[in-house]
């Protein structure tokens, strides 16, 4: 007899969360960082595998692991992230097998623009409005960066094609860091901007 399907609506309790963090690392701060790293990694996994709600599935995966730990399951591995991976694959498989799973071929997606705004009509006028809102939000978010971050992100994306590569090498030399490190710094600022813009757009749509 196969075990009943995992209850997707199981809520992560504080006890379960504490046990999970403790398993990740004895030091609470490091544990919190590892939790964030794993969650981000899970979101990337579900995104790259084409899942529709990567954030939800990542949380579902974490909840499942936390519940198992609460129920006494032992994770016999040096790095628990590997265990999360196994659970994530199961979550993904269940998602694809679920009767609720909807696969949307590219052809049938709205073709006037790329982005979707939940609940909103997808016509050219709305898309242009959204584009304008996104630009307004981005301007606002850029102004909220500290000066060094703003200068870095502007310098990093300055120029086109062949000129950009040279610019970035010079920028890295000026900052006294390797090109790879510069790339990661720019990534962090960009992700910060992306989150800021997402938040700004959500607030605009809720008005």
């Amino acid at each position, binding site marked *: 007899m196969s075990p009943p399907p995992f209850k997707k609506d199981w809520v992560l309790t504080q006890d379960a969360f504490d046990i999970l963090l403790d398993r990740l690392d004895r030091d609470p701060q490091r544990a919190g960082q590892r939790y964030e*790293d*794993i969650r*981000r*990694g*899970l979101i*990337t*996994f579900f*995104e*790259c595998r*084409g*899942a*529709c709600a*990567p954030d939800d599935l990542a949380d579902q995966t974490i909840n499942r692991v936390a519940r198992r730990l609460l129920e006494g399951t032992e994770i016999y591995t040096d*790095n628990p*992230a*590997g265990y*999360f*991976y196994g659970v994530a694959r199961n979550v993904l498989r269940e998602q694809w097998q679920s009767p609720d799973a909807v696969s*949307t*071929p*590219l*052809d049938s*997606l709205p*073709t*006037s*623009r*790329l*982005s*979707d705004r939940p609940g909103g009509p997808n016509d*050219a006028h709305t*898309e*242009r409005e959204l*584009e304008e809102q*996104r*630009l307004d939000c*981005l*301007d606002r978010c*850029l102004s909220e960066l500290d000066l060094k971050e703003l200068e870095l*992100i*502007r310098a990093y*994306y*300055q*120029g*086109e*094609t*062949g*000129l*950009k*590569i040279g610019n970035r090498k010079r920028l890295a030399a000026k900052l006294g860091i390797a090109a*790879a490190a510069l*790339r*990661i710094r*720019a*990534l962090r600022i*960009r*992700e910060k*901007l*992306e989150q800021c*813009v*997402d938040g700004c757009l959500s607030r605009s749509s809720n008005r």
Partner: protein
Amino acid sequence: MVTKPNTRDEKLLIQYLLGQADPEEQEQIEQRYLIDPEFHDHLRAIERDLIDQYVHGELHDAEEFEKQFLSSPQRRQKVEFARALREALAATPAEQRTAVPERPKRNAAGWFSGWRLAAAMVVLLIGGWLLAPWPQRGATSRIADTSPPQPAEHGTKPAPEPGPDATLPPGDATPIRVATFVLLPTLTRDGGETRTLVIAPDLDVRLQLSLEAGDYDTYRVDMRTAAGDGVWRQDGLTIVRTSSGDAVVITVPASRLSDAFYTIRISGISAASEAEPVASYYFRVQKR
């Protein structure tokens, strides 16, 4: 920026992001980035570079990219963000400007003076065919204009016939986000009819400017209206190999275009950083 992966890791990660890694490699990559946050950072940085290349029209595997990135709302948002970032940063003063505003402050006194204009140019519209250095065409690659390809005329060359995989959109098909056109250099003014690009109002326009590979490492594209108003300017471009031959490729946002006549001038940037005229193109845009 065209990022050429110079490490095996980077090539594999690009394949992974484009859904082209084999299952074993896929698993190794996934396990690694779940365990190693630095590796995860590296993957995300490569993803952003890929998105930027796509947004700048520099990606060779655009079709594969679109399959992976445009079928997911979260990834599409990243692409939209990249477009917005490009526009926001282009609007700020910088050593290298990437775009000219639609209403420039200068008073153009006649951009065509001193030019040898031509009218013998053919705009080749390939129904259902997205032209670029991309290997295949799929059902997702439709372009806006359903006009039949124009016959070749003196000084021009025809574009290849659409292959068996090309699909022609029906008359009332909703166009997708990019329309691609091949433009051949204007040779002489002979009083012939100016070619018209008919596009949907919300499409970006990818222009493949046919050009013989020359002595320049980079090129500048300067697009203006007939009145001399700046529309689009881009530096640092290189020649890419397309199915129609060598070309300089630019993507102009729909918001920059209106019903008007346009001229594009390509200049090669010499070793002394001087712009030397190479070719010009003349056409009209009609929004439907």
